[in-house]
Structures are given as C-alpha cells and as structure tokens.
C-alpha cells in the first residue's frame, strides 16, 4: 500500500454497484436510496456526481484495508497498543510537559455523554447552554488559578498557545520585532514559535540560565533592548526550577515588553504564587496536568489568561454572560469581531476548532478537586519530590546539577550517558526520565525526573535503588 498513491485512471471501471453496498454507520439502504433518487428525479447515484470530471474520477476502489468488524478492529488495535511500553505496565517518572496525575473516575464517563461528545461549537446558544456555561466556568477557573483577568475557551496546546501569546504581544506593542524567550522554556515550544513566526520578520533572542537553573537575569537585562516586544519565561521551567517572577518582571518592564509566563505543569498553580500576582501580562500554558491522559502528546488543551486591557486582542473563543428576552441569565460566544469568521485576514488568530472537550475534562477536574484538592495535589507533588531529591542527593555518584527551588521535577546527573542509565532502568519496569542531551548541548549525562501524587514512597525508594544499581552496573 505504501507506494500505491499513484494511480492510473484510464483502466476500465470495476466499481461495485452503489445500491448493493450497506454499512452499519450509514442508515439509508437500497430501499431508501431508490425512494430518494425518485424524489430527486435522477435514476442513479452516479448522476449526482456528474460535476466531477471523469478524468479525475477513480475507476477502482481505494487500495486500503477494511471494512473491519469491531471484532477485527479490537484485535488489530489492541495488538498495536500492546507494542508500546507505557505507564500501563511500568512505573513512570516522565514529565517534560506531560504529566501522569490522578484522573477521577467520573470525568471520563461524563465526557462520554453524547450531549458533550457529539455536539459542536455552540454557535446557537439557545440549544447549547450546556457547553456555553461549562466554558464560562472553565474561564473562571483559569482566572482564579493564574491571578489574571480574562481567559479564553481553549487553544490547541501549550506550545501553540505560546505562539499565540507572542503574536498577541506584538499586536499590542507594535513596531518592535524582537522577542526574548528563556532557553529554559520547553524547547519544543520555542521550536514551534520559530515555525509560526518564520515569515513575520521577528527575531527570537534566547537567554540561558545560571547555576541554580533560573533565568540568567544579567543576560536577560542585556537582551531586553528597546526593540523587544515580549519576554517569555517558563516556571517551573524545563529544568524543573521555579523562576523568580519579580526579578524578571522588573527587567522586562524596563524595556516596556509584554511579560509572558509559560506554565507546562498546570497543577503547580495549586501551590505556587501565580504569574498574575507578580504583574505578568499573560499566562499561557498546557492544561494536560489537570487529569488529562498523556496519550502520546495529544489531544491536550492550551490555556491563555490575560490582563483585562488585552482582552480584545485575545485569540480563540470567549464566552460571556448575558440575558435572554425573558431576562434569564444565559451564556453566549462573544467579542467575535476578533475572530477569523468575521475579521478573516485581520483576525487575532486563525483558530476555529479548539480543544473544547479536553477543556471540559479539565473543568470537571478543577471542580472536583476544588480549592482544597488543588492545594493538596500541589503539596503532595512538592513533598514527594523533596523526598526523592534528598534521597538522590546522598546516593552514590548521583548529582543534582541545579540548586534552585523545584516543584515536582528535577534534573538528575550521573557519570554515564542518560540513555544508557534509562535503558537499564527500563529492565526494572521503570520509565526513569527524559534525557536532556537531545535538548541541550553538553547535557548527555542529565535526565529529567518527574514525581506526582501517584508515586508511592515505595516507588521513590525503588527508583533510587534501581538507579544506584544501574550506575554500579555501568561501573563494571
């Protein structure tokens, strides 16, 4: 099949008769088809396709597998899934922007309700109040958590969210072309920004970190020249270290840049002071940590929360409160003049379909956990990470290169290549971490370890034991 995309259309047609075919997902059968053709006044389905020139019409069926029964699909897809190693059968310490947190049982079952699963963007508010009200609630959660004023209904994910934030900042500041992004921002996020802005004439300036793993404020001050329209930092950053928002804000303010805080571990907002409290203009990030499966990277949900002054520059959908003709409170998509379907080429973003169902799942998670639960998740991640950090610090030839404060992720260094060490842990049914080498030059012996409330003390102790054992094996 691999290379059959080329097709010779001249051979005679060997297509089956449309009337004979039947499929479980398509109600109308031959009897219906006949009745309908009669009403339409044509004698065959093919007649309805005459506007498609024969020269481009297929004369044979596509060369793809199927149709499969559910029985066959279950066999094939489950076999495929069984080829993965995952947290299903390993203890995972993988993070780096995708975290395995507790997923309350009721959420997935509620998300399967057809009313949520099989409806679309609430263009018609009178028959979509369910979706609209949940988005309004979701927007409110975002504001409470980030300490900022206005949140949108969702963006694709954290990385494209950062792109939208950068574009927003440029619209606000105007006539500046430089954006400063900390090197400790998720490298794939920065890569994505490069892709997005490649034809817009921006310059991306990266700023490194100091021994504590925090942004190098001296370098940042230097980078923040008068032609910088935005400064973007991540906290906790890709090294797991929590940034000093205030120090960064001061520097950015000095050059009048928009201050963007990137958050890839959303549960950190339950316990860390939020960017809004430190005078940042935009909080943007990834909501996956709020109980969404890691599912190989998607679908996730990007969130963006901004100061009130920026709301009319906001990308994506916004839901607002209003009343109906009887004066009843109701919700509706609003400030649509920002959007592509009205503003077209001049829209604040090209986004249309977003990640609504994932945002709804996050919304349910935030409601279930609530004020106390969000704090406790944060506290448990913090404490279990602190416990592991202490244990590792002592252990053998393991070192922790960065001294700054952390939330639930740390960089671990051994005398040996991370990939070797991790391959070794894999035999112990441990997915031990993410090698930093591919992301940062000269860090081949470092890897990123994430801890959440799902890890037991036993998991952590076993990890340390397995790691030290792996190192001594390498020694030999």
């Amino acid at each position, binding site marked *: 099949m691999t290379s059959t995309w080329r097709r010779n259309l001249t051979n005679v047609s060997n297509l089956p008769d449309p009337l004979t075919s039947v499929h479980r997902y398509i109600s109308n059968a031959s009897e219906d088809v006949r009745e309908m053709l009669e009403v339409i006044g044509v004698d065959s389905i093919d007649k309805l396709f005459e506007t498609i020139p024969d020269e481009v019409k297929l004369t044979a069926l596509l060369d793809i597998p199927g149709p499969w029964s559910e029985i066959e699909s279950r066999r094939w897809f489950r076999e495929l899934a069984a080829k993965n190693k995952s947290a299903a059968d390993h203890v995972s310490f993988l993070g780096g922007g995708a975290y395995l947190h507790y997923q309350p049982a009721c959420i997935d079952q509620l998300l399967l309700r057809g009313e949520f699963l*099989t409806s679309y963007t609430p263009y018609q508010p009178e028959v979509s109040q369910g979706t609209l009200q949940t988005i309004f609630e979701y927007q409110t959660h975002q*504001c409470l958590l980030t300490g900022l004023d206005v949140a949108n209904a969702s963006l694709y994910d954290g990385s494209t969210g950062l792109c939208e934030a950068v574009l927003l900042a440029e619209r606000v500041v105007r006539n500046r072309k430089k954006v400063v992004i900390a090197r400790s921002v998720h490298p794939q996020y920065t890569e994505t920004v490069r892709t997005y802005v490649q034809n817009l004439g921006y310059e991306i300036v990266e700023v490194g970190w100091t021994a504590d793993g925090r942004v190098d404020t001296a370098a940042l001050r230097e980078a923040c020249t008068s032609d910088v329209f935005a400064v973007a930092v991540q906290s906790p950053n890709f090294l797991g270290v929590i940034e000093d928002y205030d120090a960064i804000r001061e520097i950015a303010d000095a050059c009048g840049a928009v201050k963007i805080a990137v958050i890839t571990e959303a549960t950190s907002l339950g316990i860390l002071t939020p960017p809004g409290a430190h005078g940042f203009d935009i909080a943007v990030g990834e909501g996956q940590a709020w109980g969404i499966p890691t599912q190989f990277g998607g679908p996730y949900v990007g969130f963006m929360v901004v100061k009130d002054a920026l709301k009319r520059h906001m990308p994506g959908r916004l839901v607002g409160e209003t009343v109906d003709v009887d004066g009843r409170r109701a919700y509706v998509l609003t400030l649509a003049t920002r959007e592509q379907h009205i503003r077209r080429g001049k829209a604040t973003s090209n986004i249309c379909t977003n990640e609504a169902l994932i945002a709804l799942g996050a919304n349910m998670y935030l409601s279930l956990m609530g004020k106390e639960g969000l*704090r406790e998740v944060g506290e448990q991640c913090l404490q279990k990470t602190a416990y592991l950090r202490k244990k590792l610090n002592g252990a053998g030839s393991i070192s922790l290169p960065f001294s700054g404060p952390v939330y639930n992720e740390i960089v671990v260094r051994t005398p040996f290549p991370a990939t070797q060490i991790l391959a070794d842990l894999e035999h112990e049914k441990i997915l031990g971490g993410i090698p930093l080498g591919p992301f940062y030059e000269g860090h081949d012996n470092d890897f990123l370890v994430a801890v959440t409330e799902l890890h037991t003390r036993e998991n952590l102790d076993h990890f340390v034991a397995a790691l030290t054992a792996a190192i001594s094996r390498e020694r030999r």
Partner: protein
Amino acid sequence: MTTILESDAATTAVPQSTNREGLIFEHSKRGRRGYKLPDLDVPDDADALPASLRRGEIVDEVEVSEVDVIRHFTRLSKLNVSIDAGLYPLGSCTMKHNPRLNEELARTPGFALSHPLQPDHQVQGNLGLIWHIEQTLKEIFGLPRVTMQPVAGAHGELTGILMVHKALAKSGNARKYILIPDSAHGTNPASAAFAGYQIKELKSNSRGTVDIDTLAAAVTEDVAALMITVPNTLGVFETDIKRFAEILHDKGAYLYCDGANLNSFVGIARPGDMGIDVIHSNLHKTFSTPHGGGGPGAGPVGVSERLVPFLPTPTVEKREDGTFYLDHGHPDSIGRVRAFNGNFNVLVRALTYMRSMGPDGLRRIAHIAVLNANYIRARLRGSYHLPYDAPSLHEVVFSDKLQTPKDVHTLDIAKRLMDYGFHPPTIYFPLIVAGALMIEPTESEPKEELDAFCDAMIAIARECEERPELVRSAPHTTPVRRLDEARAARQPVLRWKR
C-alpha cells in the same frame, strides 16, 4: 421533560427546577469535598518550598462534593442538542455519527498511558499507528506524503501555506499573494496572513465557482498559491480544478485545497489526481472523530512531491526490518508546528473509522452524503430560494429571499427550527449568499430524519406566510430564548465573580 404548561405556577416551576442550573461556583459550600488522595506517605518537609513562592488559598475556588459535580454536569449536558440525539445539519462542519468503537479503542491503556517523549523503541505501537494512517491518507489523497502533526483544519492551513512559502523562498522568491475566492471560510485568509502573505480575493461567478479567466488574470508572478475549497462552500465542485492546477503550475504557483468538504468525494476522486499540491483534511469531519463541543480535531496535510522536503519535523519512517522511528533530519523542513506528536489519540479514532469503513465504505460515505443533501435540496426547493442553481454535492445553500418580504429572516428561521427539535443549519455563511442557510446532513442521517427536517422547514415557510410573528419570536421551547448578544459584547462579563 417537555410539553406545554397549563399554568404560570407550573411555568415558573419548570425553569427553576428543570432548566436552571447555577454555576458550579454558586454550588460551593465551605467544607465540602469532591476528592480524596492517599495520605502523604513521605515526611512533610516545611522547607520544601520557600515561603515567598507559596500561594495562599485559591480565593473563590469551589468546594463541592462528587454528587454536586455529577449532578451539575449531567444537568448542563441536558441543555445541549447533539448528533447522538438527532440531525445536526451545520453546513461545512460534517456533523456525522461518531462511532463508539473509536472511543473504546482510544482508551486502550497502551495508547492512553504512553508518553510523548518516550524513545522510539518504547512506542513502536504509536509510531506504527501514525505510519499506517499516513499510508491510508496518502492513498485517499493520491499524494506522496502526509503530515499528521496539525491538530485542526486551520492549523493544517497554516502548515500548508508555510510549506508553500518555504518552497518558493528556496527557489528564490516567496512571492506576495495568496488568491482566495470570496466564498472561502474565514480561516483561509487568516491562516494565509499568519503565514506571511497578503490576500487577493477572487470573485466567484454565477455558479458560485471560480472562472478560469478570472483565475488566469489573477495569477501573476507575485501569486504564491490559490487557496480553494473543493467542492466549495456552496457544495459545488470546481469542474475546472485540473485546469486551475495547470494555470498555477505554469506560473510556478501552488494549488492549495481546503479539504473540509472531502466527505463529498472521498473514494470517488483524489486531490492528487486533480493536480492539487497541498490539502488538509479535518479528521473531525470526514473521519468521524467527535466534535466535543468545539474540539479536539486533527488537520493532517498531504503534499505533492515538490513540497515533501518542507514537511514539518519529525516525520515517522519505517525501516527495512519493519520498525518505526521519528526522523528529525529534514534540513528544509518548516520545523514543527506543535510540541510532541499532534493529536495522537484523535488519530487512533480516525484510523479506527477508516478501517471500519474500508474502501467501499468510504465511497459510500460520499454517495449517501451527496444523496441526502440533494434529497433535502429537492424537497425544499419550492419553499426556499436557491441562490445558486448549479448542481451541489454534500451540502445545499438556500437563502431567506422568499421570507424577507414578510420581514422574517434567516436567523428567525434558524431559531424556529429549534422549536421543531432540530439544530439549525450554518447561517449567514458563505458570505456570497445574503441570508444563507447552509445545510449539510451527512451520510449518517436516515431518510425519516431528513423527512422530519424537511417537513419542519416547510411548515416554517408556511408559518412565515401565516404567522410571521411566531417565527420572529422563536425559539419558544428552548431552555433559554433569544439572547441579548449585543449586551454580551458591549459590557463583556467573561468570568464569574462573587
């Protein structure tokens, strides 16, 4: 629970008790809990976090029980209409049946619990799945490569135009303009703009399509590409599509196809065979992944040979030995358009669907989708104005021209449909039709449902004659009635506050 109320007592009873559900924040009560975690099993270290970094309580966050949460979202869900409950004929959105098998298989632990940054050897199943869906889309598109990274149609558009830009730039001149017909979807110009181009709008002809001469005249040395929807937003196929390709290619420009309407010709004809260089397909449309109240989706992009070097990285490749790997080595790539591997678990659903349908099933999708749309067209012709008479495929666009004399407009008709239990069609789009009613039934709908819808539309047309006020004041039977949208925009209230 619905029907007429006989008394204000009942009347007032119902909105409160069955229709109104407060905000979750309004359910909050001190001390309530909706969760439990295992007790902390490590020492509680007070210095784990510097005090300056620790936030106080999250003011106004909710305190509710699990019961409160399940009640809340169950009640809210009842205020939505959905495909599972009936026809949802939003034109251009392809609201088709979402098979439950897709949901089941997407939840297979091996998929759901895999992590995006695992090394290739640990995720052979996932990489294999991405490879297989690319092979399948290559065959469906008739194109040599497809990137699975974009997570929506608009995202695919940006990806596609960025590739065109890079390809042209590489050959010396990125050019200035993208041509876009006036019937196009708003994301087209928006995406083209973010990719660094200016937009030149093409006027469509009396068939609602693009004239060869108009195109030929417009394609200058400054034109990078034509961005066109096939069939267009009227559901009309661009019969000259192959000639368009020639004209563009002669001038070194590219032909971009917005594949949102692929449902109307999947398995019947292939973009690649039409000379199309780039096409995105919305897996949440043609390939049945659920719309979820607005998303998620996926917008894979297929490209012709000339554009292959510019695909986003990484790509998924297969080795001789049958194993798969992520290939980052594409020097001319536009780069990655998203972190990680796109909306992987949307791809699982879409591939499940492709396998469920098979070659004959995919073709049947187009057959019945087009049959259903033309059936509606035939039944409603007399009752509603058909602004463009050209034969249409999977959707049909009417206007309110016959109703406006009675001062009843498309919006009113849409709202009145709700009283008959149907979600309205897409309205006021495409822009080239004044008061457009854009109806796309998809292949999922049984004849009975189409008949019920047509009966309702015809009854409404009669109501417009006989009782226009009834239509103008619709809807009458929905949880809320017509909203003050102006107010929402004038004094935006975008979050709850105590």
